[in-house]
């Protein structure tokens, strides 16, 4: 495996950064040296900081004509050897979906940061929402897998951005950092270490760039200009990239492998965090900013002797099924507060064999801890 510890791109120490600034710094620390994007609220500060910082660290920044061009140029740069990313918000994320499917079938490692705002449509551009999780999973046509992370703090906006690149490079898959306006514009203390652990692309010359012996393997990935004479296509292809547009076995083989390489490693990829789960009768399952409201609520409840706990989902896709199953076995009731109409509630219901209910809010504001306290108190 190609993990290595490299020197950071910021001096070690404490910073007072916004979530968006932290994303930019995390990406740069992970080795991102190509960024293409199009301005959109509430994500634009990411591209603004990248534009300035790439001048210092030597990266290529492109402000493209739209989000379609942004993500497509990112894919082009990745095949030219870059670690590359784009950042956007809901409307731009919608525009990028076709290219995300392309990245999935061509096994192109890339990072998309989606700073979620209140949708659908133009919605409330400056307000918060968490409505893009199902789009992250199912936004492009056909069957494929992605990885989606859900940071809850400025620290995690930084760390998840590094992690996103590491996962993308390990599994050759699009990885999303699913930020929310409330974390993107929050300023917090960020602790930066002197070194960063990064995964660099596995290259093996002369081996097939789109095939492995096993049905859940990740092939090595060479770049353009290295004399490999690569054939990259979004059409169904064999292990060498030759188009196979009417061979049923070739199609099934490719589709199964790009799904299996993620699903078979679900246990390694999917990450959760447990708070006060010991003896918890009611478990709140939450992610992103809402998990902070939930933790605050759970701590208030515990102070009054109420047996509440929190399972925080740091990874949304692949979905942490096992952790949810465990909670479903131990708790009497699971509550899922979300800034949407229950996108993850449905997933939790699939795996938790206990009473599960949602607490949904779609007003463009964060869920206040007191709402969660009241909801838990009603059943305890």
């Amino acid at each position: 495996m190609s993990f290595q510890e490299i020197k950071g791109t910021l001096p070690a120490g404490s910073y007072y950064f916004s979530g968006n600034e932290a994303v930019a710094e995390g990406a740069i620390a992970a080795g991102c040296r190509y960024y293409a994007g199009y301005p959109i609220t509430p994500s634009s500060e990411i591209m603004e900081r990248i534009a300035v910082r790439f001048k210092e660290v030597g990266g290529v920044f492109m402000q493209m004509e739209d989000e379609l061009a942004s993500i497509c140029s990112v894919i082009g740069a990745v095949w030219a050897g870059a670690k590359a990313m784009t950042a956007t918000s809901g409307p731009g994320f919608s525009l990028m979906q076709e290219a995300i499917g392309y990245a999935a079938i061509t096994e192109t490692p890339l990072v998309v940061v989606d700073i979620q705002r209140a949708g659908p449509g133009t919605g409330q551009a400056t307000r918060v929402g968490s409505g893009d999780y199902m789009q992250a999973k199912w936004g492009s046509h056909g069957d494929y897998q992605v990885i989606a992370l859900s940071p809850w703090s400025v620290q995690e906006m930084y760390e998840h951005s590094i992690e996103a690149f590491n996962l993308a490079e390990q599994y050759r898959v699009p990885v999303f950092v699913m930020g929310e306006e409330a974390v993107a514009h929050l300023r917090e203390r960020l602790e930066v270490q002197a070194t960063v652990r990064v995964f660099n692309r596995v290259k093996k010359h002369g081996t097939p760039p789109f095939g492995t012996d096993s049905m859940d393997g990740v092939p090595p990935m060479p770049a353009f200009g290295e004399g490999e004479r690569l054939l990259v296509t979004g059409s169904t292809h064999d292990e060498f990239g030759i188009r196979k547009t009417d061979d049923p076995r070739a199609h099934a083989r490719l589709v199964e492998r790009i799904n299996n390489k993620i699903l078979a490693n679900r246990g390694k990829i999917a990450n959760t965090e447990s708070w006060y789960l010991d003896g918890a009768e009611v478990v709140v399952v939450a992610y992103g900013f809402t998990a902070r409201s939930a933790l605050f609520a759970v701590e208030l409840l515990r102070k009054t002797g109420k047996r509440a706990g929190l399972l925080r989902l740091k990874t949304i896709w692949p979905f942490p099924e096992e952790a949810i199953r465990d909670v479903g076995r131990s708790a009497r009731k699971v509550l899922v507060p979300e800034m949407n109409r229950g996108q993850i509630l449905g997933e939790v219901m699939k795996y938790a064999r206990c009473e599960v209910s949602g607490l949904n809010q779609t007003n463009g504001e964060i869920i206040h801890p007191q709402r969660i306290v009241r909801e838990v108190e009603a059943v305890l």
Partner: protein
Amino acid sequence: MQEIRQVRLCGYGGQGVVLAGTILGYAAIKDGKWVAGSSSYGAQARGGYARADVIISDRTIVFPHVIEADILISMSQPAYDAYSGEVSPKGIIFYDSGMISPKKLECVEQVGVAATSYAVKEILQKQSANMIILGACLRVAEVVTKSSFAASIHENVPERFREANLKAFELGWSLGEHLKGVQEV
């Protein structure tokens, strides 16, 4: 010092409320504290009323928004009217006494500082009022150290405004000296 302090600054857009919040938050980090800051964003921040919340704590902060302000710094009447009701019992309000007529509030101490008027007369720059009122507040309420705040001004304010901001902060700090035990300067 208390374990956690919730500070809210508010005023008109253009009074430098958001920048003041950033300077305060960064100063607290220099003091080794944990900090979470949020501010009004979007159309409001471009001319309407502005708000900056800063939570300062000795340990990591779970919920990063202000629930009840321990300290409210208000620089305009509409902002005062909007937020003076959300101050915690035993909280303290610093208001620009040239801009605001305070209401009677139970359990909340209120201190007037004629920040804008001092800014115009002493600094010859109306925009320095934010540093004056914050200087006075910090002297009285002891939120961050003076040296960290001055260093934070150095790092967060563009060079051409730096001297004026430091001077305004010093003026506010000295006004704060006289505030011990009085209601207005």
